[in-house]
């Protein structure tokens, strides 16, 4: 028997399949493309295929994220914060803080030794410190998202981005480009700025070691480095894939049959 966890975000839909022992059997990440019904259906089909199993072998499905109600099969809808806490605690039982950096949200969650969330803080209504900020800049500079980290890390200097607003920062970036500043320096400045915003959000809570980073943006090594520098603490990137943490948590919840 298997359990399926699906995290339907505005950017990406993530799915995992775990077995009775709680081992991750397979996983998938695909763009949501503004169609959560289809993307979650696609996830189900892919996971079944990858695991070479049939639908009736899935004992339960747990969903979370913005689009959690669009999941086509019978499912349990779960809070994203609970799922992040659960998933983080599972992949790294020694962690007591999770910083989740998604496309539209940044969350900091303090968790106890049982993986229960104790308190959390979220970004306010703005993209500062979120993935969307980087996406806007990536488009403005015509640098693909996956290359941003490498560019930023290779820079010998960095520009100063003063705007916390993604829209105003975009104009700052364009001004720098027109002034002839190198792209890697600009990206290093952008990463630095996001790192500072994220740290600011994080420090609203009293951070406890160990600190785990999850979410799609956790794959950006330059960004994680910038946050580490600002927090002056060691950060661990969630494995196997930081973007899967909420989905893992969702699958674990249905396995435990809780609520």
């Amino acid at each position: 028997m298997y359990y399926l966890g699906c995290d339907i975000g505005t950017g990406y839909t993530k799915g995992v399949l775990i077995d009775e022992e709680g081992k991750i059997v397979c996983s998938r990440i695909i763009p949501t493309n503004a169609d959560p019904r289809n993307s979650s259906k696609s996830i189900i089909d892919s996971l079944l295929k990858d695991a070479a199993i049939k639908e009736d072998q899935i004992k339960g499905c747990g969903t979370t994220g913005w689009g959690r109600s669009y999941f086509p099969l019978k499912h349990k809808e779960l809070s994203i914060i609970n799922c992040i806490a659960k998933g983080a605690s599972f992949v790294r039982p020694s962690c007591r803080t999770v910083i989740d950096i998604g496309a539209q949200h940044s969350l900091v969650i303090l968790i106890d030794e049982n993986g229960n969330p104790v308190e959390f803080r979220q970004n306010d209504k703005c993209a500062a410190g979120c993935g969307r900020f980087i996406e806007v800049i990536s488009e403005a500079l015509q640098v693909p998202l996956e290359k941003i980290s490498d560019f930023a890390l290779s820079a010998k200097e960095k520009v100063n981005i003063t705007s916390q607003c993604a829209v105003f920062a975009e104009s700052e970036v364009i001004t720098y480009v027109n002034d002839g500043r190198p792209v890697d320096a600009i990206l290093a400045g952008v990463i630095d700025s996001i790192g500072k915003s994220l740290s600011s959000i994080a420090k609203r809570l009293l951070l406890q070691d160990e600190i785990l980073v999850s979410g799609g943006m956790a794959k950006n090594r330059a960004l994680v480095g910038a946050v580490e520098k600002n927090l002056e603490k060691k950060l661990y990137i969630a494995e196997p894939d930081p973007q899967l943490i909420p989905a893992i948590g969702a699958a674990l919840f249905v396995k435990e049959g809780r609520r």
Partner: protein
Amino acid sequence: MEALKKMAPLEELLEVKTGLENPYVRQWKEEGKRIIGYICTYAPEEIIYAAGMLPYRAGAQGCKATDKADIFLHRFNCTYVRCLLQLGLEGKYDFLDGFCFLNGCEQLRRLYDIWHRKVPTKFVDMLTIPHVISERRFKWYLDDIKKFVEGLSSKFGVTVTKEKLRDAIKVYNETRRLMQELYDLRKKENPPITGSEAMKIAIASFCMPKHIFNEILRKALDQIKEREGIKEYRARIMICGSYMDDTFLIDLIEETGGIVVADNLCFGYRHFEGKVDEVGDPIEEIARRYYWKNPCPRMQGEFDRRLSETIRIAKEAKVDGVIFERIAFCDNHGAESVMEAKFLEKEGIPTLILEREYMPSDRGRLKTRIQAFIERIERRKRL
């Protein structure tokens, strides 16, 4: 202490640095003397000066980010306050021996609550001033100032004598007189000094002992009077607003062909106008001048007085237009600028309202708006 630099006086004032990079501040500290920071024009500087300490108006120049401050403050708080807290948390204000906060505005008064908990300044005090100006309420402010004097005295073991107070009053009145002279020169049809230069001189006054500033300014005024007046400009501008301790905005205006010939800023005119009566009880006379001077928008029921002051200054300096600047999320200037602008337009004076952040930024957008405003003024002149 004497003028340190071998530079020409005017040049020295124009080059002034803030914080410990300022040679006077550094030397003051090296001599083992104390520096008390303050944040509002209602703080009675003469008192601090008479206590043998340097009153230092705490700006936040050089602040690059507000991540530390934003742990406590929020995006709804004005960036000046956030930057100031940031510098405090970064240790940049460790050279202060004390800090005098005031309940000037909503945002600044909360800084006291955070600062005394999170920044290790030795002596942190809150001076409170009524929101309404009248003889009856004056006593509250006077009593609070007396408490402040006691606080300074007991914390640092100093005595603030009547004599020292009278000396301080003389020095500060002289500063006011000299600044007024400078501002009068700006009103000329061909001003011998740009708005940017005048602002720099005003900023310099906050970063050095006033008696030295007076000495340098006296000589600088002689230099200025020798200069040829500026003839090339497209519009005479008055700038109104609140906290501004750099020339970023004024530079933008003057780059675009405007010349800033007058202001009603709390770092400018509102800070040095009026004078302390040199007869009578010194503490009371000091308090009186501060309490009754041209009020900040946070003072209730004084709108008409402020408006007529703005109009008077604008007419005296023969300005072509008034630019109101305000920091985003500032409620007082946010509303005041709109209100004053409405009535100025009715008087036939063109106005522009610019919202900005404390840190210099957003050049393109601001310049475009200033450009359009100056063009509007030119069109109007042609009619």
